[in-house]
């Protein structure tokens, strides 16, 4: 056993996924650094906003 599994909450996991995926997509799809930064920021915001929106939309179903 070299690395022990760590409990990661749902929201931190969402943020990690959104950040890393946004950076990779921005790097592939945009040409300049400024364009990449804007694209990554917008993509990160949309990832989080859509996830939180879907979570609230499903909230009544969990009760």
């Amino acid at each position, binding site marked *: *056993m*070299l*690395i*022990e*599994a*760590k*409990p*990661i909450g*749902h929201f931190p*996991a969402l943020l*990690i*996924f959104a950040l*890393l*995926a946004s*950076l*990779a997509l921005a*790097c*592939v799809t945009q*040409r300049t650094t400024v364009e990449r930064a804007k694209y990554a920021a917008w993509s990160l915001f949309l990832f989080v906003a859509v996830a939180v929106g879907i979570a609230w939309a499903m909230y009544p179903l969990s009760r």
Partner: protein
Amino acid sequence: MSEPPANDTRVAETPSKQSSTAILVVVAAWIVPGMGHLLLGRWGRAILFFVAVGGLAVTGYLLRGNIFPPRGGDVFGTLAFLADAGSGIFYYFARFFEAAGPDVSRAAGDYGTRFIAAAGVVNLISVCDAHEIATRRRS
């Protein structure tokens, strides 16, 4: 067709050499995320892809996501294996990061499975990007 500038070193490469370089870049990019871009002198992209792929894969392992073996048994298992194996060296060392094995009985483990697959897919995208740069289709 216009004549290329005299100081353009790229014109010295023959098509066969360019092809072999592209193959080397593709293989390197798959085995070690970012290595293909590193060979092409794209340090920024190399670091970014290594961090993105490594971050997704290691987070997936820490969440105890499922790692699909080469013989998945069905089409979905095979597709999942291809996605997982896309992360190259991170798939090879999966047991190093996830020695306790997967645990998809919890939601976190299920998320981890998606993280690991996403890491492989992101690396496959980076492989395509490196190939396009190596073959001059992209700057």
